[in-house]
């Protein structure tokens, strides 16, 4: 059933040049020219003494990287579900949001009682645990109620369903927690203080965020490559039916995949609590789409790729507007940050649809 497509496509396209290809090349080249012109313009400006100072740039790069790590962790949820089931779980951004929403209630209770500043590490651990538990719970519930019975359906059906789940969750949380934004208390104790690394002062929260992201990543990597469950996941990604015949419990493996994605989203939730702090019911939507971009950028289904994609995207949208658009003479470039993020997605898919590190998909999904 599956081995019908790939070879023919490659050979027939190589010798044909039609106007669509021409147009695509035109877009690619125009994009490159715009980037080049913008870069030279910005560099001239900076050489003339305009723009942020060196410290300003350093701050920008560091915060872009930390944001990127957060995107990367959310992206893992997309990537693993896509690898195993072949569908984009559009509601994953809301899985992330659910964790931070419950976390913010928890944190304000702890803050008011003085627990927050008295036991800084313990409170952060509690927030992490709460965010992870809630995100995992929501992810598993969504899988059980909405996605499970759609496994054999045409691939757009589960995607449309997940859009419905996404909106349902957003407005369910709006109803439960209210529509107004809430704020996490500032980082407890001395966690937020600057730490000097190679003579550069970096906010402690950012160091913590990067450390947690890397540690989580290593744990996940070991889990997927070294444990029996991880092997089952890869087997299910390769071929569900055969994996089932080999005695793997496909249902349970898929639930595990969703749970892992939810747990990663929970970790990303802690980072949000430390970095951005402001939370509302729609907080998951944009990070969700950005994280999907990161997953595609790194190569969907590829675990280290997701984190790399996150960092690259974070840098691109953090530094890109200032570095490229500013040079084109566009005013108030920071307004266009999200547009740059989306443009990055389009450009990635135009230049390298398999992502930076290549896709690792099951054979069912390569078509």
């Amino acid at each position, binding site marked *: 059933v599956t081995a019908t497509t790939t070879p023919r*496509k490659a050979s027939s396209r190589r010798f044909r040049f039609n106007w*669509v290809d021409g147009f695509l090349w035109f877009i690619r080249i125009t994009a490159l020219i715009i980037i080049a012109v913008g870069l030279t313009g910005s560099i001239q400006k900076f050489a003339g003494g305009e723009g942020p100072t060196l410290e300003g740039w350093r701050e920008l790069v560091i915060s872009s990287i930390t944001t990127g790590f957060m995107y990367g962790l959310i992206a893992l949820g997309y990537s693993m579900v896509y690898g195993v089931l072949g569908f984009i779980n559009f509601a994953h951004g809301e899985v992330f949001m659910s964790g931070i929403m419950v976390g913010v209630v928890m944190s304000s209770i702890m803050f008011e009682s003085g627990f927050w500043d008295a036991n800084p590490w313990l409170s952060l651990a509690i927030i992490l645990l709460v965010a992870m538990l809630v995100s995992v719970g929501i992810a598993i519930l969504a899988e059980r109620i909405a996605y499970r019975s759609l496994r054999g359906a045409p691939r*757009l059906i589960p*995607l449309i369903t997940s*859009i419905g789940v996404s*909106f*349902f*969750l957003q407005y369910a949380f709006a109803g439960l927690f209210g529509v107004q934004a809430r704020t996490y208390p500032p980082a407890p104790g001395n966690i937020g203080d600057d730490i000097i690394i190679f003579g550069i002062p970096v906010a402690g929260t950012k160091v913590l965020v990067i450390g947690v992201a890397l540690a989580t990543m290593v744990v996940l990597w070991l889990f997927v490559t070294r444990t029996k469950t991880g092997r089952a996941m890869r087997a299910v990604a390769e071929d569900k039916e055969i994996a089932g015949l080999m005695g793997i419990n496909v249902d349970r493996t898929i639930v595990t995949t969703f749970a892992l994605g939810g747990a990663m989203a929970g970790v990303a939730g802690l980072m949000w609590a430390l970095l951005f702090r402001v939370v509302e019911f729609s907080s998951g939507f944009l990070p969700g789409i950005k994280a999907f971009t990161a997953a595609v950028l790194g190569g969907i289904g590829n675990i280290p790729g997701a984190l790399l994609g996150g960092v690259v995207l974070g840098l691109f949208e953090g530094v890109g507007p200032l570095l490229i658009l500013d040079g084109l003479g566009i005013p108030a470039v920071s307004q*266009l940050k999200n547009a740059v993020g989306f443009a990055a997605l*389009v450009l990635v898919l135009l230049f390298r649809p398999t992502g930076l590190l290549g896709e690792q998909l099951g054979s069912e999904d390569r078509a």
Partner: protein
Amino acid sequence: MKDFPYVRMMGLSAGVSMSFVGAIGMVESFNSRTLIEPFLSLGTFTLYGIVFVAGYAAARGRPNPLEPPVHDAKAGLATGLVVGLLAGVTTALFVLLIDVLDPSEHFPNMRPAMVDAMTFDLGVPTGLLVIIAISAGVAGFAGALHGLSERNRRGASAAILTILAFAFFEQVVADILDFADFVVDFLYTPTGALQPWSAVIVGALAWWLALRYQGRLTEFSERVRESEPKSRLRRTLILSGIALAIILPMVLGLIVNELLVNVALFILMGLGLNIVVGYAGLLDLGYVAFFAVGAYGTAVLTSTSDTGVNFGLNWWLALPIVMVLAAIAGLLVGTPVIRMRGDYLAIVTLGFGEIVRILLLSDWLTPLFGGAQGIRRIPGIPVPFKGEVGGTEPQLFIYVTMIFVAAAAYISYRSQNSRVGRAWAAMREDEDVAEAIGVGTVRAKLLAFISGAMIASFAGALFSAKVGTVFTNSFDVFVSIIILVIVIVGGMGSIPGVIVGAVVLIGVLGGPKQPGLLQEFSEYKLLIYGAILVFMMLKRPEGLIPSVRRSRELHHEELSQDAWLDKGGSFADDEQESAEV
């Protein structure tokens, strides 16, 4: 009760749903509207509607194709009572919890007022027993309905639905019966709730009519379904539909007509998206971008304000220019995504939609599009003998809109069986095979995007003439999603489906910014849209009025899987099926 786990599951999920509905504040805010005087408010209806449905479904038993459902009054009553008790106790415990803890500091809707709303102001111990009693009674009643004969069950459902329709659509009924004020005064209270006696009368009438004409109605709909596409019957039906559409706005009042204009705009966009999603199978989540191009294009071309760039053109002159702009936009969005996989395409188009909105809002393009200020002073549509018709005269504006709806419906209808329509169908079913047999998929995809974009630009042009001022917040991603819900609820690829979908969803629930007939829903609109989307995908992916071909595709998939399992891996049935197609 042979299937207790199922009954327990139904009871508990009904209880959780009821608690959820209470927790998000739905009951409290819906209680402001009374449906039937004095006892049934919209909040009560929502709360106990859940347990009614659960009781009925549990008494029918787990859906099982091998065993026909059992219809037995006593067993149904017992099952219903158990479901109702479980649901009622769950809800009561939840209310008790809220009452004791009062978490309103963190959960603003879980406050004492909500407890009062759920317990009918009776306070905690008494009110909780009332919740349990009503929920058991309602579910038991629903279960006992299974004791009625097939005919009477239909009569009962007709009666219930008619009463609800009269209660919900009070405004429409009052408008239609405008010439007979005394009937309206008899039926409704001054605040617009149904009088208890009129509920009884209306229900009995509907029951009687259902008993009398049920057979003929099914016979008739059977005949319509069997008839050829161009038969006399279908033509008569379509003509009477058009006649109804022409007469209805004259009868209805200002508010309902305003609503109809919104519905018509969404029908228009639904028809456009239907070409892209329903015919060509390209999931476009950024469809609002084309709507925005139409609206902003018209605004820039026709606006007479002193600020920014504007041309002050006549609306009819601006329209062709806007159409060309939209076609270019369709080409620009369509070309980069042509080689992308279906799901990547969805996210990328979503990205395009957001890019357009961000650009419209940015300082960079403010000189052209006004940024957050938007574009003001957009004149209406010049109509012979009537001057400029704008949103202040919905009774006239609706007809202008209808012309475009009719045009879009005609274009959709004709393209369905044309060369490109067949190319779309082939591409939707299997792109590789379509390409292999010589279908020009590139051309087909681009044509789908362009025609979808042009239809959306009609809607945009009408929208800006209607509202007179365009802001970017009318063009966020929710618009795209709501149009998608319309197409899916109606049935992908089905023109009557899109019309019914828009009337039901936009007319009742309302659009992204526009209120519907049930204005109380506005806060929970997107929650309900999300739930509807999930429900439709799980239970009826082909939509309310399915297109024959599309539903065959969807069920073909299931069929072939079952066949594959049954026959130990051979696709014998599958081949037969495709031979029939």
